[in-house]
């Protein structure tokens, strides 16, 4: 039964993704940006599905198992506040600039804004380096879930292979258009199934109040389980959405700037809908499956389903987890393919400019190659790779001052951007080597996460580097601040 449901789900995703292919116009801009025609609802679902990974859903329950309901404020409501504000202050501005200058990638934007090929190349390598572990986590997480949910009938390698194959087929078929349709479907699936799962399990436990009264009361309050400094640090992590290449790509697909209105308004509600059941089930799991330690708690959601839900729901929950995995994986791999196609091959290719058909062909080739490479890497990686998740977010969040300076600060220069990028690279590497083997590593055990230090120093480096260097070319600045230049 479980296998049949999972198979049916994967076929449905393929069908929805291939429907996107029917609308494909065959051009490079359509493959990478859906010709900038995506409407409000699809944009909301795509942004949300891309941002929320299976890692965050299963990880939320695992974290709540150890730390209680405070996890909601730590990870969910901080994103509910910061992410939509970034969509408004960064996303809408980048959409305007992207449309005005015909930009396709984040790296193109930074290259043109600060007129520096070297900086663009450096940022390209940083973005790719930070995104690859994230891809790997998705592929491995999907395979592990497949194995656990089918009780070993589908081994991890086969589960990961199925996920990579399905994503590869629909992304190569219709590019970001197929991705957007498939993401919308999958986001609705994991939002809906989360709610259904929660209701079924809570009924089995005799109602929410009864179930909550049986757990340790210290898990029902913030208490001492989350230090205040950690809570403050965590509010900085969602700034990473401002620098994710896959979020940038989806922003540029918007039909017009008013398309952003629905995502900005509805994002906090979507977060509450998904995270409330995840956190509560994690807390309730402490009385159902006591004694889990460390990362073992990340399987609490799956264990609760096995214990308390009918088999049909096990298959549906598996489908929900794959929905979360694939809705992030497809966008991440497509954004990397866009970066490779446009910023490496397109930029450094000898001879004439690529035709539209060549761009699409190359984009497809990179999607397949990236997924194949990620899959092979996932076979030789061990579970310690999951610790890289928060480090990936930390790196992207620490680069946030670059995009803010690029959009809002006329005096910012390539020297400032170089200073900030190099500062992030050095400090990120330093803290990573110090703490990646330590779960919940904080600076000197203070509760302060490295993201706070990195963000502060990269902001300072941006300002000092820009002010110490020569001012930027006024013509270049006027290209990116046209309204101001007219009035001055």
């Amino acid at each position, binding site marked *: 039964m479980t296998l049949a449901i999972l198979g049916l789900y994967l076929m449905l995703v393929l069908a929805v993704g291939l429907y996107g292919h029917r609308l494909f116009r065959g051009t490079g801009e359509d493959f990478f940006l859906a010709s900038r025609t995506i409407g409000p609802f699809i944009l909301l679902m795509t942004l949300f599905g891309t941002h929320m990974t299976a890692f965050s859903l299963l990880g939320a329950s695992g974290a709540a198992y150890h730390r209680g309901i405070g996890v*909601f404020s730590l990870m969910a409501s901080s994103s509910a506040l910061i992410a939509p504000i970034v969509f408004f202050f960064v996303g809408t501005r980048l959409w305007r600039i992207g449309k005005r200058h015909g930009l396709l990638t984040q790296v193109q934007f930074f290259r043109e804004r600060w007129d520096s090929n070297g900086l663009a190349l450096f940022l390209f390598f940083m973005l790719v380096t930070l995104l690859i572990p994230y891809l790997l986590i998705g592929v491995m997480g999907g395979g592990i879930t497949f194995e656990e949910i089918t009780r070993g009938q589908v081994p991890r390698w086969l589960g990961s292979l199925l996920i990579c194959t399905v994503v590869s087929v629909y992304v190569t078929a219709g590019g970001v258009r197929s991705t957007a349709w498939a993401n919308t479907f999958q986001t609705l699936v994991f939002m809906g199934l989360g709610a259904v799962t929660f209701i079924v399990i809570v009924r089995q436990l005799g109602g929410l109040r009864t179930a909550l009264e049986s757990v340790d009361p210290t898990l029902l309050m*913030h208490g001492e389980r989350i230090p205040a400094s950690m809570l403050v640090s965590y509010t900085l992590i969602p700034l990473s959405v401002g620098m994710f290449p896959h979020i940038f790509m989806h922003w540029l697909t918007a039909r017009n700037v*008013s398309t952003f209105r629905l995502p900005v308004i509805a994002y906090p509600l979507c977060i509450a809908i998904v995270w409330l059941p995840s956190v509560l089930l994690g807390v309730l799991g402490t009385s159902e499956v006591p004694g889990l330690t460390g990362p073992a708690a990340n399987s609490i959601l799956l264990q609760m389903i096995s214990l308390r839900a009918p088999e049909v729901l096990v298959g549906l929950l598996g489908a929900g987890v794959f929905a979360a995995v694939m809705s992030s994986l497809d966008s991440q791999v497509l954004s990397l393919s866009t970066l490779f196609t446009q910023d490496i091959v397109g930029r450094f290719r000898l001879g004439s400019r690529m035709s539209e058909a060549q761009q699409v062909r190359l984009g497809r080739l990179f999607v397949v190659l990236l997924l194949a490479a990620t899959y092979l890497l996932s076979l030789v990686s061990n579970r310690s790779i999951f610790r890289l998740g928060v480090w990936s977010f930390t790196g992207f969040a620490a680069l946030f001052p670059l995009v803010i300076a690029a959009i809002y600060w006329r005096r910012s220069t390539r020297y400032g951007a170089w200073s900030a990028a190099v500062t992030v690279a050095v400090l990120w590497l330093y803290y990573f080597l110090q703490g990646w083997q330590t779960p919940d590593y904080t600076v000197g055990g203070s509760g302060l996460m490295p993201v706070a230090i990195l963000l502060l120093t990269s902001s300072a480096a941006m300002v000092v580097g820009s002010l110490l260097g020569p001012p930027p070319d006024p013509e270049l600045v006027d290209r990116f601040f046209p309204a101001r230049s007219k009035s001055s």
Partner: protein
Amino acid sequence: MKTIVVSAVLLALYLLHFDFWLWQRPELILGLPVGLLYHVVYCVGISVILALLLYTAWQRDLTAE
């Protein structure tokens, strides 16, 4: 003036995230732990306030091009 008001609203929203007055209270209200209920209501509040900002102070920023 508009910038000051909007900044104050956003700062207030950020500060309201830190509900330290509920950190030691495990009681259930409407079936949920009060600290969790607060943050669910907080998410709804963010949504409402962002909607108000989009239709008032930020209206011109979302004019279609």
